[in-house]
């Protein structure tokens, strides 16, 4: 008992010191005031990064949800080899980002990469695209890798939710003559709504924080054209030692994400009540 109450506050202090710190550095320097924030909105690098981050969210989140849900729907009911197939689909999630980035960097390499070799099968002359050296092909690789690694997570969440969809309800609506499309829209989807909300919010938070894969694959290049917001913040902090400018970017991001996810949770809750 003593151990619990002595160790607990101690460690708690540690914890808070890690978690609350980031909000303050940008604002704690009164001499600077809002300069960092004003500068941020004029910075073309921040603008490019904001566009890339937004695109990343808009493209990868829906695809991860749709494919994750599809895979879960396929593997909920009995199927030969179900356990093994479930396990395999989850494996990309437990593979480290560094390793994943290397594999895909090689697959999309200019020389000897599988992607170019595959595309060459369909064209008369061999394809030599240096995928990671151009903005939009680089973005495409980043999206593909992220979706590939992310499906397993939403898959497992939906799998758990679909498993407990009340089967009697399904049966009842079918007896009433509802077509399968209607059954899904009116029975299955509403009953997995809480999971949907949870997955959506966590994916949105995660996607808006995209960076590690960009850092490892393109390094934000060429010339910052594939850079994302967190990348700009990191670069400002650890390459240019502009800690407070970086903290300003990170703080604005954190606030936007927090407000966004609270609003979203509220909206989804309200939908549930109806």
């Amino acid at each position, binding site marked *: 008992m003593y151990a*619990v109450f002595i160790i607990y506050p101690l460690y708690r202090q540690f914890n808070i010191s890690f978690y609350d710190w980031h909000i303050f550095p940008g604002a704690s320097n009164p001499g600077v005031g809002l300069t960092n924030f004003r500068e941020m909105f004029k910075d073309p690098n921040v603008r490019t990064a904001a566009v890339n981050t937004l695109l990343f969210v808009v493209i990868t989140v829906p695809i991860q949800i749709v494919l994750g849900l599809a895979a879960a729907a396929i593997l909920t009911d009995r199927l030969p080899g179900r356990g093994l*197939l479930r396990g395999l689909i989850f494996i990309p999630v437990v593979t480290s980002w560094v390793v994943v980035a290397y594999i895909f960097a090689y697959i999309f390499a200019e020389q000897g990469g599988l992607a170019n070799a595959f595309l060459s099968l369909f064209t008369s002359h061999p394809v030599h695209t240096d995928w990671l050296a151009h903005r939009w092909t680089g973005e495409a690789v980043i999206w593909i890798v992220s979706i590939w690694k992310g499906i397993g997570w939403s898959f*497992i969440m939906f799998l758990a939710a679909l498993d407990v969809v009340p089967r009697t309800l399904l049966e009842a609506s079918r007896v009433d003559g509802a077509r399968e499309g209607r059954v899904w829209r009116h029975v299955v989807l509403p009953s997995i709504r809480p999971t949907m909300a949870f997955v959506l919010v966590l994916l949105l938070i995660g996607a808006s924080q995209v960076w590690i894969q960009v850092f490892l694959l393109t390094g934000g290049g060429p010339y910052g054209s594939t850079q994302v917001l967190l990348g700009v913040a990191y670069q400002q902090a650890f390459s240019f030692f502009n800690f407070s400018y970086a903290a300003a970017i990170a703080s604005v991001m954190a606030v936007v994400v927090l407000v966004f996810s609270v609003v979203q949770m509220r909206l989804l809750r309200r939908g549930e009540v109806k």
Partner: protein
Amino acid sequence: MSGLQLGAEPKTARASRRARRRDEGSHEPSLFGVRTWTKTRLALACLFAAVAVFPLLYMVSLSFQPTNDIFTTHPTLIPSHPTTSNYVQAWTENDFSRFFFNSMGVALLTVVVTVVFASLAAFAFARYEFPCKELIFYLFLAALAVPSVDLIIPQYILMARLHLTNSLPGLVLIYTSENLPFSIFLLRGFFEAIPKELEESFRLEGARSLRVLTGLIAPLSVPALAVVAVFTFNFAWEEFVVASTLIDKSTRLTLPIGLNSFIGEHTTSWGPLFAGSMFATIPSILVYVISQRWFKRGVSVGGIR
């Protein structure tokens, strides 16, 4: 949440499930109406699994190919001249084995510290009343929503002031603090599901609080503790950003950073790189496979309700 059974389970559990299925008969309504679509579903499921696994199998294949073969314009999926020299080179060059053990130490220590502190805190949340209990708990949940990479700048400043940069225990400290919120959240749910009566009879025999935790609650919570351990291990094992920011002394690098040394300015030694990647991947997949059998109960009781 339930139904997270993935792959291998203990044989007895599988047999009893099979028996139960037989009892229930096959008239459990399917998600897709009267037809079960077994063949279509199987084909699609295999497609999903193949896409998920293919890049990793490709890595396995590449790790056995001599570098000359890797650089041909006609990539091969099955090594034509299989060799293990990449593995030898990866393990012996660039202090790689040292990075491996650095990472292993950091990951294991993080698991131990996280499990100990998270169970203590979760035990307090689950069984005791204290001022602002719920408020403090919600502060933890809020911490879950704060992305860890956002914290890197203040963490760096903090660690620099504590003189804990270039220190592996320093990494353990940060990894632990980032894993605690989720772990406490999961364990609290699990601990609360354990009947109070059990605890009372245990106390009647004269057990103190800490003894209740170690002798009763913890053994009953193995599935949840296993989930916490796996998530924490993987987090610490593959963490890249914090490690690359805090550590620059070459003897203290962790594995993910160490792998980077195979990427040169102009040439990348892909063969050893992929062999090194295998060393980095095998432990996390192994940990995942071993822990699968606890996943279902671990997540279903403690998870989202």
